[in-house]
């Protein structure tokens, strides 16, 4: 918005002439959006920031005289004091970290795979497949959650299918045990080493942090992959269709097989889309709320508690508005930091010398040798 106004100035053009009045027009056109964003986004966010530093109890204005500044008390309660709020926050972070760790790579890989499949010109009825894969994304998350509760109930369809192949399925949404712990338990490890159980972070021992997502959370992870892959598949299809065929053909002429063409030619060209998908995935996964609210409310055993839901329940149900706001801002910081980190990982890098050497022509090498 500002760029359109200041660009001509930076270019050093004299003001007036045919461009006169553009700045005012620019501001006039953007003003409604700026005002709306300011009132409905910026001001509430700043108010919430104030609440997170205050002892506002949820009655009347947070700016009235009897609301006091309490500094970092709310942040300390959920991160440093070691009581129930700290343990709840640690548990929520643990659950959500596992969720992100599994959902983001899985949904990205699956959506890319689906996109490559349905992008093929030779595939018959690919319109049908695209619609079928995309369909879960347009269904309301509440409806999907209810469906999932049915599918994954103790005697639900999933367990019946598992039963048909001789596996006794778990009682999905009522099983609080962590899958990593379960896997370790299967090989006889039921208690962590003292190094892990002795100390910890945010009220949980390291052994607890490493428990893995609970069986209940795993069902949510499957659901997230199922519902979001379609959306991201669409992004990947759009990107794939924008790629010129010539680069691919050139690689083919050079003798690259399909596998090499995908990894060395197609995928690097998809990097901007990959960045979009990963960023959207990261943000969406850290904000998971609807499924928890409609599905399990954090149970069983708090293993599906997420910071977003904890923030809601701390504020609205326990009247700890400051702590709720503090959780929201810590979550905000986590998302921003991870997005920046991810941007750094995916940045455009010059080709390394070692990699460049692989592509050098043989005669050039000789020249250098001479």
């Amino acid at each position, binding site marked *: 918005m500002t760029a359109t106004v200041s660009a001509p100035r930076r270019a050093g053009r004299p003001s007036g002439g045919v461009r006169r009045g553009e700045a005012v027009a620019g*501001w*006039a056109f953007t003003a409604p959006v700026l005002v709306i964003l300011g009132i409905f986004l910026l001001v509430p966010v700043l108010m919430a920031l104030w609440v997170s530093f205050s002892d506002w109890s949820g*009655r009347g204005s947070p700016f009235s005289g009897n609301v006091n500044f309490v500094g970092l008390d709310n942040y300390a309660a959920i991160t440093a004091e070691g009581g129930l709020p700290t343990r709840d926050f640690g548990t929520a972070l643990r659950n959500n970290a596992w969720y992100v760790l599994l959902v983001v790579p899985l949904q990205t890989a699956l959506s890319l795979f689906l996109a490559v499949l349905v992008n093929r010109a030779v595939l018959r009825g690919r319109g049908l497949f695209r619609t079928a894969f995309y369909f879960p994304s347009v269904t309301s998350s509440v409806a999907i959650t209810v469906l999932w509760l049915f599918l994954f109930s103790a005697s639900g369809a999933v367990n019946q299918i598992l039963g048909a192949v001789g596996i006794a399925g778990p009682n999905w949404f009522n099983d609080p045990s962590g899958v990593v712990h379960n896997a370790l338990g299967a090989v006889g490890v039921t208690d962590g080493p003292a190094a892990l159980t002795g100390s910890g972070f945010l009220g949980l021992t390291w052994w607890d942090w490493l428990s893995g997502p609970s069986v209940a959370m795993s069902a949510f992870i499957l659901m997230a992959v199922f519902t979001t892959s379609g959306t991201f598949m669409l992004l990947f299809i759009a990107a794939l269709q924008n790629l010129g065929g010539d680069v691919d053909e050139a690689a083919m002429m050079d003798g690259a097989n399909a596998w090499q063409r995908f990894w060395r030619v197609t995928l690097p060209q998809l990097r901007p889309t990959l960045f979009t998908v990963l960023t959207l995935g990261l943000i969406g996964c850290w904000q998971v709320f609807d499924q928890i609210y409609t599905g399990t409310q954090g149970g069983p055993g708090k293993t599906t508690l997420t910071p977003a839901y904890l923030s809601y329940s701390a504020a609205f149900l326990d009247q700890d508005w400051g702590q709720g706001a503090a959780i929201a801002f810590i979550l905000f910081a986590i998302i921003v930091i991870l997005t920046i980190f991810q941007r750094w990982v995916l940045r455009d890098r010059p080709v390394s010398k070692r990699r460049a050497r692989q592509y050098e022509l043989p005669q050039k090498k000789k020249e250098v040798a001479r």
Partner: protein
Amino acid sequence: MTRSGIRRLIAVGALTATGALILAGCGSGSGFSDPGASEGSGDLTSSDDGLKILIGSSGDAETDAVNAAVAAWSEESGVEATVSTASDLPQELSQGFAAGSPPDLFYLAPEALAGYAENGSVKAYGDLLGNKDDFYPSLVKNFTYDDQFYCAPKDFSTLQLVINKGIWDAAGLTDADIPTTWDDLASVAQTLTADGRVGLAFGAEYQRVGAFMAQAGGGLVSDDGTEAVANSSENVEALDYVKTNLAQGDFAFASDVGAGWGGEAFGKGLAAMTIEGNWITGAMSSDYPDVDYVVAELPAGPSGQGTLQFTNCWGMAADSPNQKAALDLVEYLTSSEQVLSFSQAFGPMPPVQSAAEEWKSENPTLAAFLTAADYAKSVPTNDGIASVITDFNSQLESLKTGDPQKLLDTAQSNVEAVVG
């Protein structure tokens, strides 16, 4: 300054002014008003304003009954009143209080009372009620915070033992076998555990398991609510008893037999007995009308009979402009005739002693629920106890394999943080 610079300045100025005006409008409006200054219990506000009533309804039967009662009162008193049902009561209440425009009267759960009383959102009007002495003393205690009786109980329920008559008779048991001690309960549960069904199923939560703690003489907080007693030897004994039977397979948590709550496990025949409150009668008649059942008092534990009671009250907003009319409406809604008609319409028990005899004669098969009013214990109401109970519940889910003492020690440290 160049001409375009000046124009820019004007544009920015206009924008800022517009924004500031809109923001100012937002600030001075009714969006956020300061709470009133006077909080004493004697001075009720009075005005011509109509009353807004917010309820968390269990279904159409309850909504219709409350609507009809409020309409009748409106007719009589000439004060307008509208009832709305909340889909998420705690959230809608919190929004109302934060915005300074709460409903005048609303359902209020005891565990939410302390939070709202602490921030001055609710009015302590209990002592002004004309029928104050008619309420069961244990219910009055439930809604007393900081020595002030805040709000009138609207109804209540207790937990009792619900027995499937068909399975009971088929197992060769008679009325004489109805358990009166923990040992009896364990042995009939064992007898009834057969054919892929457990003897007794109940929810994995303090709100059910707590009945055993009460029978052992324990609880999360001391009777006066000032001391944490969660890891007492009585509680350990209670959890040990439950754990032993869970491990033997005679007891089970509802979730472990694939049911959402005890009533579902019972109705589907996954369990021969369950521990539930009188709300189960509604679920049985609507979802499982073919199941014949009897309600018996829970057996006595080492310290005698014990159970838990649940209740809600009619909360009144401190910001309500017409508290006099609201008080009048509460007295009307808690009158003996009115609570009995509520009871007929949607099943809860009257909170007033004057209605007890009539209720018992109308519901002879459910009398055990009301008898328990004499010894039932309340769920603790300290500020912040709700999240402690949620945490305790999450630990109880693994009671079958867990260590009761360790579990209660965790609860103890959590309770200590909110008590006193």
